[in-house]
């Protein structure tokens, strides 16, 4: 297992110029690691909708690399998004933060916590680049390969669940985030 911060530190070191969409608990950590116009805190959000939002970005801007940092609870709300993503030859990578918890609501267990084979689900959906990491060291070693390559990707990270954390807030208002992102990717 790794901490959420360790997981995101490795991602920050390897994300390159990709857009990074963060959700839920990741929003509370990511701005301290990266706070550029290509960092989009999807908060407030609609749970389960971060992956299609990232796919939409990539479809609108062909060639744009997108990483979506999604929790297990959010992904479980919309597993079909993996099938949708797999249809498209786009550089979108889902980084799954699997802590088995609905962390921001106080740490209740998600359905199937600790039992669900998320890598198997991603493969079965048709995603070709799938990897899984249990420890921070393994993730450090494998991140470059896991985030490289073409087409949709899926990275499953086993992360220690934490209870009692403050509810995260986005680093700036949504309208400002959108303006910055659009300028950065030439979508204005």
């Amino acid at each position, binding site marked *: 297992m790794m901490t959420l911060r360790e997981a995101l530190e490795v991602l920050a070191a390897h994300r390159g110029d990709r857009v990074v969409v963060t959700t839920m608990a990741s929003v509370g950590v990511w701005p301290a690691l990266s706070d550029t116009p290509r960092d*989009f805190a999807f908060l*407030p*959000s*609609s*749970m*389960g*909708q*971060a992956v*299609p*939002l*990232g*796919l*939409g*970005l*990539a*479809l*609108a*801007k062909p060639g*744009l690399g997108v990483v979506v940092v999604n929790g297990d609870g959010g992904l479980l709300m*919309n597993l*079909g*998004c993996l*099938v*949708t993503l797999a*249809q498209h030859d786009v550089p979108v990578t889902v980084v799954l933060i699997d802590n088995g918890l609905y962390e921001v609501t106080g740490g209740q267990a998600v359905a199937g916590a600790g039992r669900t084979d998320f890598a198997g689900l991603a493969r079965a959906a048709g995603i070709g680049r799938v990897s899984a990491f249990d420890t921070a060291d393994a993730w450090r070693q494998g991140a470059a390969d896991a985030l490289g390559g073409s087409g949709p990707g899926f990275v499953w990270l086993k992360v220690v669940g934490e209870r009692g954390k403050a509810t995260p807030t986005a680093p700036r208002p*949504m*309208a400002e985030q*959108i303006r910055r*992102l*659009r300028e950065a*990717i*030439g*979508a*204005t």
Partner: protein
Amino acid sequence: MLDGPTVVRAIEAAGFTHVVWIPDSHLGTWEDALTASRVRLVRPTREGEAVALAAGLMLGGARPLVAVQCTGFFEAGDAVRNAVHDLGLPLKLIVGVRGWRAHKVGKTADNCPRFAEPLVRAWGLPATWFDPFAANATGCELALRELAASDRAAALLWGE
């Protein structure tokens, strides 16, 4: 009834770049024309997902149209709330209202027509009815152009 090629020509003329859809038996008749169109067809698995996908497309500068049946719109409420009211995006939808024609003459027990307009309006979306059985190609083009031209989110309620 307007055929698929006529509707798709109107979608193209209105300037939409993508159609994100989950078809019903009425909207589904547009499939061949959409597939052959210069508008890119995107197929999600659920209507809330369609709305979020359209949100991402809009963030990236595209002009998507979401086309779903009202039953799927009912499921997609939270995604609509987020895209329109949190992100402030001008989401454009065609919402197929199942059973609308039969409902008008009291010949169906389908409750979709009863809930469709109130729920679209409940999410703060201006809604305009469109009757594809009465309209001609010009009327269809006008309705799609008006939908696309608005700088606010809006829905066309497509009477089925």
